[in-house]
């Protein structure tokens, strides 16, 4: 078990959100799309230029930019090597 930022997660890796450290428009938007503490997510893939990232959340797919993923802290099973 380890806490890492969403940006650092790898394709196919799953985890549970522990904190969203942002307010304002971005925070609101992220939360209303279901990214709140306790939600489980899984990295589904990344765009060809490695950004944005696509997540599996509550049966749907969401996309976020990496710099937005930086505000989201996730608890993962096995920490990504490196």
């Amino acid at each position, binding site marked *: 078990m380890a806490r890492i930022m969403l940006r650092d997660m790898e394709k196919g890796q*799953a985890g549970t959100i522990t904190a*969203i*450290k942002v*307010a304002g*428009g*971005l*925070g*609101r*938007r*992220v*939360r*209303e*799309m*279901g990214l*709140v*503490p*306790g*939600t489980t997510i*899984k990295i*589904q*893939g990344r*765009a*060809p*230029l*490695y*950004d*944005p990232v*696509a997540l*599996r*959340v*509550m*049966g*749907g*797919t*969401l*996309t*976020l*930019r990496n710099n*937005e993923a930086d505000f989201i802290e996730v608890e993962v099973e096995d920490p990504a090597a490196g």
Partner: protein
Amino acid sequence: MSKSFKIALAGNPNAGKTTLFNRLTGARQHVGNYPGVTVEKKEGIYNSPSGARVNIVDLPGTYSLTAYSVEEVVARDFLVHEKPRVVIDIADASNLERHLYLTCQFLELGVPVVIALNMIDVARDRGIAIETDKLAEMLGVPVIPVSARSGEGVTELMRVVEEVARADKDWQPVHIAYGEDIDNAILEMEERLAARSFLAELYAPRWLALKYLENDEQIVARGRSFAAEHGLAEVAEYLEGKVATVGKHLMATMETYPEAIVADHRYGYIKSILRQGVVTHTYDEDRLYTSDRIDRVLTSRIFGPLIMLAVLLGLYHFTFSYSEVPVGWLESLFGTVSAFLDRHMAEGPLKSLVISGVIDGVGGVMGFVPIIMFMFFGIAILEDTGYLARVAFMMDRVFRIFGLHGSSVMAYIISGGIAGGCAVPGVMATRTLRSPRERMATLLTAPFMNCGAKLPVLALMIGAFFSNNRAQIMFLLTLLAWAVALIVAKFLRLTVLRGEPTPFVMELPPYRFPTFRGLAIHTWEKTWQYIRKAATVILGASILIWATMTFPGLPEAQKAEFQEQRRAVVADYLGSATAADDPGEVEFPPELSAELAAIEAARAEEALLHSLAGRVGSGFEKISWLAGFDWRTNIALVGGFAAKEVIISTLGTAYSLGEVAPEEGDSSLSRTLANDPGWSKIKAFSLILFVMFYSPCFVTVVCIVKEAGSWKWGAFSMAFNTLFAFLLATGVYQLGRALGLGG
């Protein structure tokens, strides 16, 4: 109760609201597999089997009822101000937890809700079973499983809706617990609000207090203006102060924000309900859906972009190669009509009006209907399958460099980014962008795309001067439009529209099979828009322009001079020829016909130059020659401001008025231009550039003014774009000439 009442369709973007709306009202509104298709509310009538007349309003999709985007404001204001009898909350059964977040907010608002659990077919395929009775009991509102697409469950849904509407109960807000800090603050604020009847006509005190805590800008602003009007400034101050105190406290104790706590608790409430066995999964929840498997290929690092390019190129080939035949039919149809009228109508201004003004003008535009149809059919497939959303996903990184957003792609594409759109809906589609600056940059640059009205002009020029590689040139022009739009957007974002980027957080809808009905509506809607425009705005503009090109006519003295020339030539011939009893019946030899035609051409040109339009056109020639445009082109370009299609029709009129000899079957404008010594490839290219980038048409400018909220932006886009286009065209033309590519 009365036999007619009003209900609203609300729900998350892409939940299927419009699909249901179309099914209920028989309307043909645009449905697309892309979040945020409907941006304005639409009304329709549903006649229930029991004879009630139900007024249905299709609202734009929203994730929440805060007021951070235009659609949210539209949806919320509708609910609060118009108080519909019932709200049908369309929730996606295959994605229930997320969709219940909005449901929660309807419940908190208190409006009578019936939940339509849509896409029940998709949920079934994914092995998701939902206990609707249990869910209904826990939420305290009816829940009806439906499939808007197939119609399953819709009758039952409407029966329940009618029942709820008949009951006509008062609004009963649900209270969700938000934890001690927030709950206490709400109680305190609520009391104060109620005591002073603050904004009481519109909002319940508890709801209002909650919105203040959620930091809802629209509500805070409304509160301030209400306070100012009613001398309640201290209440507004108290509310804002209270929110600030709570915020500070939460930050200090829990490092979080009030709005975050509110969202967390709402999801907590939803999770507590769903946890009680409402949803069961037959398959492993982590199982890859078909859609995800497709994405593995279509958005992969290497194949993703390659496939995207191939898809777009394929669309061109599809459009241009298959539409060629019907375009030919239409051209010859109009040619035949024109020739028929030429033979059977009496000479005079009426004939000139019908042939030169109406048929050449409108016919030229109608000839492009097949291209428009094929193009939109292709785009409809891309949108309805869900591929366009992937394009936004893949392109976002690139767009961000230019200060835009992945969703700007949609606005560009609607405006003609794949060629053949219209900037008016394109400008409106920018509403889904949340940041005002990115939105402005997108809506100001979207008109650079090759809309359906510019397409005929481009197709004409390409056909006349670059006919050997039509699809390639068209493709290059499209890339050029994108390049220019992006660079200008960057320029705007660095100057007048400086500021931080906004969140990209977006949904990727699952791939779906497009329905034939959906594709047909989509294609027909756009094609019909085009035809209707041709029959109204363009017809009017054509006639107006024909009039300015015909009047004032040549002065009598000059007319007489040409008459005299003709007579002299004929007399010359008759004098030298041997006996001819009736000069009218004489077969003139070819040399003589040519001579007469030359005189006629000189007369027509003189007349056109003398006309109002001719004078305006020659007036501009002093500057426009820099870019290679003669006075005829100038007339067309000025007319193009009314609608870009008019450029074609005006050139058509200009050339048919001044035509040397309209030989049967060879009267198409394209051939006329190709054979005209005054034209060259470089001139054609300069004109293409100018047409692509100069001022948006009148209707678009009106739309920009409306969407940007100030006439200044409309004026800006007219002046900026025209100047930019002129500099570009001049640069290219002068460079081309310097390189010896023709005058």
